[in-house]
Structure formats: structure tokens, C-alpha cells
């Protein structure tokens, strides 16, 4: 009897702890100040997804489940490739990873922040500070110079004009675009645009870089240059990079390859690394 009482007591404590965690609002300060190990158990795990399900409700009878319970863990400093045929759920998974969309069910912790219960405003802050997007179509803001494009995420993070400008110049130098920083997107080639986009993705020193087919619109030579930049970021700066691609060659350069099919990971293998291809 005594033991039973204890169990109930413990149970209650756990319940209230859970509740408290759920009710907690995540602010920008929390995200930037809280040491990840205080929230998450393992300091080295950046992305922790458990049984992620994503359903779209296109009217009740047409319910469409795209992700059927995806488990994924990405460690700090990994260069992970996600491959899959079109329609396999790659884009949906990317949207969930990139905090552009919420999973319908499951647990998702990004750099120690519970994403499932985050509000819209929190998601904005997470995208701003924790995620660097690189898109297939570059998505640079038109009529805005390369420099201003790189400054954008820092603008939304609330950095001062001078800091923004200094950091943006450094980042553009890093991708070899310093000479073109005052050019507008329509004055740049595809490869140059993608380099600016990578510099922009790096702006707030994010926990992960999420690259969605970054070489998809480029010729093989330029694509190679872009991949080299990712490798450099990975090797020299220890960046965590998630590359979404349908090219097995590019995927094989990464440290780990996850294959998605019909909304589930069907295969996981080690990549051969960059040198294998070179």
C-alpha cells in the first residue's frame, strides 16, 4: 500500500512536469540563451524526430498521410543526405525539419527546442536563428543587393545595421562573392546566386543548414563548386548540413545517406565522403 502511494505520487510529479513543459512559451531569448543540454539529454543531437506523422486534410474523406512515422536523429557536425523519388515525402519532411510546417503527430526537438508546441511566432524565431535555408531556386529577394540579401536574416534577428553589414561582408568573402556584393540578383549567374544564398543561410550562425536540391538548377561544374562550399562549411566550420537531393552521386559524398520512400525511411547507409568522388 505504501508502495502504491509512492507510485501515484511520482506519477503526479511526472504529469505536472510534462504539463509545465508543454505550457512553457519559447521566446527568442530562450532559444538563444538556453544551453541545449539543459533541455535535451544529448548535447550532440541537433535534430531529434520521433515518429513524425504528417497528414493533410483536404476535406475529411480525402485525408492524405504523407509521412507515416519518421524517426530521425542528426548529430552535431553531420552532413546528412536525404534522398528519395519525387512524391516520397522529401519536401514535406524538409518543411517539418525547417519549421515551416508542424507535424501532425510525433516529437520533434531542434537544438533542444520542442517544436511541436511552438507557436507561429516561435517558429519564426527558430527559422531565423537556428535554420539556414538554401533553396533550389535560390530565392534571393529581387531588386535587393547581395549584401542586403545576406543581411536579411540578421535584420529579422534584430542586429544593428553596422553589425549586419560587417558580418554580411565577411560571409560574402567566405563564398568568394565580395566583389559582387552590391550587385542585384538579376545581375548574377545561377552559381553566384546560390553562393549568395549560402552566405545568407549562414547569417545567424544556424544550428543546421537545410539545403533543398541546391545544385538542381545548376550545370554540373557549377554544382560541383556549390557542393565544395558545403563540404568546406562542414569540414572547416563543423556545420551540420542536411542535403535533400535525388542525385545518388551527390548523396554519396555525405557522411550518412537516408533514403525516403512513401513517407518512411527505408534505408540508412554511411556515405563514402567527398574524397571518394574526387
Amino acid at each position, binding site marked *: 500500500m505504501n508502495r502504491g502511494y509512492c507510485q501515484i505520487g511520482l506519477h503526479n510529479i511526472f504529469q505536472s512536469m510534462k504539463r509545465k513543459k508543454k505550457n512553457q512559451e519559447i521566446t527568442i531569448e530562450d532559444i538563444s540563451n538556453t544551453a541545449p543540454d539543459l533541455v535535451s539529454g544529448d548535447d550532440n543531437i541537433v535534430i531529434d524526430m520521433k515518429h513524425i506523422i504528417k497528414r493533410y486534410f483536404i476535406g475529411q474523406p480525402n485525408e492524405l498521410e504523407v509521412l507515416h512515422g519518421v524517426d530521425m536523429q542528426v548529430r552535431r557536425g553531420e552532413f546528412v543526405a536525404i534522398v528519395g523519388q519525387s512524391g516520397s515525402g522529401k519536401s514535406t519532411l524538409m518543411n517539418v525539419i525547417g519549421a515551416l510546417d508542424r507535424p501532425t503527430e510525433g516529437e520533434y526537438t531542434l537544438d533542444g527546442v520542442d517544436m511541436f508546441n511552438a507557436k507561429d*511566432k516561435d517558429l519564426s524565431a527558430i527559422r531565423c536563428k537556428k535554420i539556414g535555408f538554401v533553396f533550389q531556386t535560390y530565392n534571393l529577394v529581387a531588386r535587393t543587393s547581395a549584401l542586403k540579401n545576406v543581411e536579411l536574416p540578421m535584420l529579422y534577428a534584430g542586429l544593428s545595421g553596422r553589425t549586419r553589414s560587417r558580418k554580411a561582408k565577411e560571409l560574402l568573402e567566405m563564398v568568394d562573392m565580395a566583389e559582387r556584393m552590391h550587385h542585384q540578383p538579376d545581375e548574377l549567374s545561377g552559381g553566384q546566386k546560390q553562393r549568395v544564398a549560402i552566405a*545568407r543561410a549562414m547569417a545567424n550562425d544556424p544550428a543546421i543548414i537545410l539545403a533543398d536540391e541546391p545544385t538542381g538548377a545548376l550545370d554540373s561544374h557549377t554544382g560541383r563548386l556549390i557542393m565544395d562550399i558545403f563540404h568546406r562549411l562542414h569540414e572547416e566550420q563543423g556545420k551540420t548540413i542536411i542535403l535533400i537531393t535525388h542525385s545518388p552521386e551527390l548523396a554519396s559524398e555525405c557522411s550518412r545517406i537516408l533514403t525516403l520512400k512513401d513517407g518512411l525511411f527505408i534505408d540508412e547507409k554511411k556515405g563514402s565522403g567527398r574524397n571518394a568522388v574526387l
Partner: protein
Amino acid sequence: MLFFENLLMAFSSLLTNKMRSLLTMLGIIIGIGSVIAIVTVGNALTNSITSEMSDMGANNVVIGVQQREAEDEVDESGKRYGGRINARDMTDNDLIKKEYIEELLAAFPEEIKGISIESVLGTAKVEKGRNYANVRIIGVTPGYFMANNTKMQSGNELSDKAYMEGKSVCLVSDHFVNNMYDGDSSKAIGRDIEIEMSGGRKYFVFTIVGVYKYESQGFDMTATKDVTTPVYIPIKNAIKKNHAKGFPSITIITAKGVDSDDFAFRVKNFMNRYYHNNRQFTISTFSLAQMVESMTTMLGTVSTAISIVAAISLVVGGIGVMNIMLVSISERTREIGTRKALGATNGSIRTQFIMEAIVLCLVGGILGILLGLAGGAAGAKALGYEASPTASSIIAALIFSMVVGVFFGYYPANKAAKMNPIDALRYE
């Protein structure tokens, strides 16, 4: 935080589509421009009328003999007929007599500062060699100059003694001096002028004692040289010559602090006791203050009416702004998606587009103000008045155009803010 950046972004997107921005702003420009122009012209008109009136003396109360309004007559069946007026000319009996005036002065010693009476002797053409001048000879009281704000140019005013004794002295206008003495007043003063009245029946001689500054009354169509200017003589002298038994109207200059409207009413009541038994004529009074007020009110009503029309055009302009903002937002859907992916909150997207609408309207408003000021100045000049734009109308225009920007920018901006980033990024 983002204020300055938003402002820069707004201006740059405005400049990207110059033609489109200009066309969009046109509604605002026309709306604001017409309001400012109307207010400027209306204000010029009001100012000029007010100053003209107060030159004439806003404190003056004019008392005049007036034909009675016919009273309706009722026949046996109770039917009303418009009353008949036994129209007849004013006779000596109907005029305001000297005794009435004396009693009036005695009744209101505090309120009356001066009294202006004129008695016209007639018009004449004064000739000397090849020079000539058209004159109207008017006998006046000392109050006349006060009531009409007439300024002396040289020489003396008519002296108290001249008034008391009704001497044959006169004041002539600078215009008269120009015509007759080549503008040299010293040649004129002390000179006798011989005046043969039109019709040739009478012949008078007056000694010039002073020259006053003639101010033309409104539009004068006659050639400058032929303008008829008054020659002022003491009223007693005029009465000696024209044997006037009374005056059709007199003007009272009220003392400072007297409510001229109220005073006009009291004077009317006082004077009407002399006209109780007069079937045809009665006394009417009016103060210039009343007239100025009614003129200003009328102008104000007209301005308000036109301003309402202009406000409607502003609303139409605002709808144009909203329309173009919606177009701009759908064009820039991917940009919105990108910004959201980079960490823009709904609020910052909303602010960005509202700012853009405000800048669009504000630039339109400023252009409209400039256009309105130019148009108002041109309009006022064409009417012969001095343009006087009001700061309040300019500030109101600026605020109003900003309000239009916020009001019509909110819906599109909110639409942009609420876009789903995934859909926005995928938008083709």
C-alpha cells in the same frame, strides 16, 4: 527596430515601378491637390473680403430707410392675397431727419463713437485748360472719414470750425490732384476750384484745404483718368445748397466693445418709433460684422461641400492603392515566402506592406499638396487675391493621406502576413 529598413524597402519598391506608383498615386494627388487648392483660394477670398470689410469698418452700423414689405391681405373667405404695395418715391417726410439723429445720439451716448452722414450735392466735371477731373460733391460729417477709413495724403482735414459754420472748403482726392495739378499737392492746397454742376444750373466755389488718398471701390470699368472721385465738403455747407430735409441712410460708428449686432437691433427698435405711422417706409439696420460673418459662413459651406467631393476622390484613390498593393503582394508571393523562411514574423511582413502603402499615399499626398499650392496660388492670382494656404490644411492633408494608406494598406498587408510560407515559397 525595423522602421528605417521598412522605409527604405518601401521607397525602393516604389521606385522600381515608377509608372505604376505614379498612376496609383494619381487619385491621392488629385484628391489632396484639389482640397489644398480649394482651401487656399477660399481662404484668400475670405481674407480679402474680411479685410475689405474691416477697412470699411466692421464696427459700423448702417441705418437706412427701407420700403416696407407688403403684408398679406385676407379676404372674407379666408383666402390670402399677396398684399399690394402702394409704391411711391421717398419724400422728405420719409427721410431720417436731423431731430431723429439728435435724439438717437442722446439715447445712446455710450455706444456711439461717431456718426457718418453724407449728403450728395451732385456730380460735375472740373475743367481748367486742357485738364479735367470728374467729381462728385458730397457733404459729410466728421465721422465719415472714420467710418470709411479714409486717409489724408497732405494738407489738413476739414476743421471743426468749417463743420460748425458750413464753410465752403473741400478735400479733393490724390486722383484729382494728379489730373489737375500734375500730382503736386502743394499747388492744389489753398487753391479755389470752381465747380459747375452737371446740368449747368448751379455754380459753386470751394477752397481746397487738403488732399485725401482715394481708394477705388471694387471693379472700376472707367478709364483711370475719367474715374469720378468725391470732393468732400462740410455737410452744413451742402445742406445750405441742396436744402436736404433728411437723409436716406446714416452710419453709426460704435464705440469699442459694443456688440454691433445687438446694437443694430436696439437702434432699429429706437428708430422705428418715428416710422410707426408710415405705411410705406420703415427703418432697417445692418452691421458690417453681420455681413462679414454671413459671407464667411457661406464660403465655408462651399469649401466644405467641395472638400467632401475631394474626400470621395481620396477614397477612390485609396481603393486604387489597395488594388495595386494586392497586385504587388501576389507578384511578390515568393519574396514573402522567402522572408518568412528567413525568420520574418507575420508582424514584420504586415508592417512592411503597410509601410509601403503609407509611403505610396504620403508621397502622393506631398505631390498633391505641392500641386494644390501651385493651383491655389494660380487660382487666387487669377481672382486678384493674395494666396494664403493654411498650415492646418497641409497638416490635415498629410495626416489624411497617411490614414488612407493605413486603412487601405491594412487588408493587403494582412493578407501577405497570413500567407503560409510553404505555399508562398512554392508559388509560381
